[in-house]
């Protein structure tokens, strides 16, 4: 396949009439708590899509359902026509995943981490060395390939993970908060790598609570309290909800007048032009940040202090 036209147009090729990702009233409950509710969305092949929302909005749960890690309690979802529950195994071969926190073995070198990945995805022995060299080159880590990941900066780790997620030629890439925790330079560098994929026609679904990143995507879905409250191109969303008049945004969850209740609540910002943040506040009545420490967060912070290596 080769990229045809701009990334927003549907790509040519066998997957032409088929959605890359299709979710139909997808939902997940944990006991009495609803993490995701009635999530419906279609993503075209080659599309660059961002899920925007605060922590706890259900972005990661949605991503985990689409990547076969979490079983939906309602609705269905498919990746290139393959059901994420019934055909989970086949779906796994089609997707590449970059987690919110590094999922690397930091006592191993960059190359060794890639080798494990290659074996797990059944990349033939004869191809392995070549593919790994190209992945290292792509991530600009050729010189660091025999260094242990433990000594890598956050940006290097993320580039390695991004390259790793691509080694088995996935058709969809899932990125969970790819640039979180990186310094501005690392962020910019990683974003360039992500942008290169986009030019190549890769289908990307990422979660973020970084507005400029969301604004750079083809389409944005805004999540709040487990629901997808609006979907559209950044421009459409700003036009529709940013206070600058009506636009053509498709609303994912029509019906219960929820959007309209909130929408009039915000006054148009007088001088400055409206942006996605205004849209977000208009739709959710919230700012984009929200922190709470879970048991896992404590473990992560323990890890950052040296963790396993401090006994």
């Amino acid at each position, binding site marked *: 396949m080769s990229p045809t036209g701009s990334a927003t147009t549907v790509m040519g090729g066998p997957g032409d009439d088929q959605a890359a990702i299709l979710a139909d009233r997808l939902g997940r409950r944990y006991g009495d708590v609803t993490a995701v509710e009635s999530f419906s969305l279609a993503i075209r092949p080659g599309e660059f899509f961002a899920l925007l929302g605060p922590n706890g909005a259900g972005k990661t749960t949605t991503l985990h359902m689409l990547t076969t890690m979490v079983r939906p309690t309602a609705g269905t979802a498919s990746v290139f026509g393959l059901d994420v529950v019934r055909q989970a195994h086949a779906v796994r071969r089609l*997707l590449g995943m970059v987690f919110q926190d590094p999922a690397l*073995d930091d006592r191993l070198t960059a190359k060794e981490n890639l080798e494990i990945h290659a074996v797990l995805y*059944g990349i033939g022995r004869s191809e392995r060395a070549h593919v790994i060299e190209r992945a290292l080159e792509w991530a600009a880590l050729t010189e660091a390939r025999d260094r242990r990941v433990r000594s890598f900066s956050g940006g290097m780790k993320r580039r390695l993970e991004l390259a790793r997620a*691509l080694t088995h030629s996935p058709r969809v890439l899932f990125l969970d908060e790819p640039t979180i925790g990186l310094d501005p330079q690392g962020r910019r560098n990683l974003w360039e790598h992500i942008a290169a994929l986009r*030019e*190549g026609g890769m289908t990307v679904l990422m979660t973020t609570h970084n507005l400029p990143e969301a604004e750079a995507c083809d389409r944005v879905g805004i999540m709040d309290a487990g629901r997808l409250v609006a979907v559209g191109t950044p421009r459409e969303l700003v036009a529709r909800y940013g206070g600058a008049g009506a636009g053509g945004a498709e609303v994912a969850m029509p019906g219960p007048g929820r959007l309209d209740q909130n929408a009039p609540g915000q006054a148009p910002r007088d001088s400055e032009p409206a942006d996605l943040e205004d849209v977000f506040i208009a739709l959710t009545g919230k700012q984009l940040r929200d922190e709470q420490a879970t048991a896992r967060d404590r473990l992560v912070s323990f890890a950052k202090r040296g963790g396993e290596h401090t006994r």
Partner: protein
Amino acid sequence: MRAGNQGVLGPFGAKAVGVRSLAGIAPAVVLVMWRREMKRYLRDRSQIFGGFSRTVLWLVILGYGLGASLREIEGYTYGQYILPGVIVLNVLFAALQCAIALVWDREVGLLREVVVSPAPMFSVTLGKLLGGATISLIQGSIPLLFAPLIGVRLSVGGLLGAWGVIFCLGVFMTAVGVIIATRLKTFEGFGSISNGVIQPLYFLSGSIFPLRGVIGGVGFLDIPDQLRDELRRIGVFAIGGGWVVQLPEWLKVLVYANPVSYQLDLLRHALLRFHQLPMTADVLVTVLAPVLAAVVAAALMRRMTAQR
């Protein structure tokens, strides 16, 4: 920018042929996970150092220190008597440390990457268990290096038998560790595992005290009080004095319920030709316990990583 050059789907040109498996086991996956464990172990010098320091502390210092009082047990010096116990202690540490790293791996490490991959989880677990057992074999062999120093002569048969038992114990304890790890939500340090699991299993296995016997030899049933007083006057304290050693009933129950007791007993038989428990029970527990624990560990790993 360099990144832009390979702009096609699958930028590195890889063709995934799929994981080959035989009877539900993918040898390549088992091997790569085993090698991962070995690399992690060989790069962690503190673990190797720990194996040596533990051996020296127990075998040499305790062996000679406590051995000055407990001069012999059934013809063996105290150091010789505890040699199999020190091996077991090294195995407990090695296997559990390897297994408990899973908690870590699941939350901030490689396991999540393994979970979204199409690799079969049973093979991943098998690689882990074999890795833990191999590390156990190496760590458990450290005390054997000290065997000549304390006067234990190793025969080839005895050594092979000992390695067999150590390997089984390694699989068993790694599996037990995996079972514990799948149950733990969070984990901040190894101390709780050491105090809560390793030490009870170790101390309740007959590793450092005989299960029953007579101290001091028949004939010296007790030291008369007058003699004690005289000895005390010249600075010698009377220790023991000759009585039948019989563990309290509750302690005996715990020792007999501990599978490690039987594995240790078989190990002692291999190294010293001395054992205290029925040989059939020793062999059965040594062979069956790892199989059983591995089955449970694999099932729990599967459940932990399954779509939930």
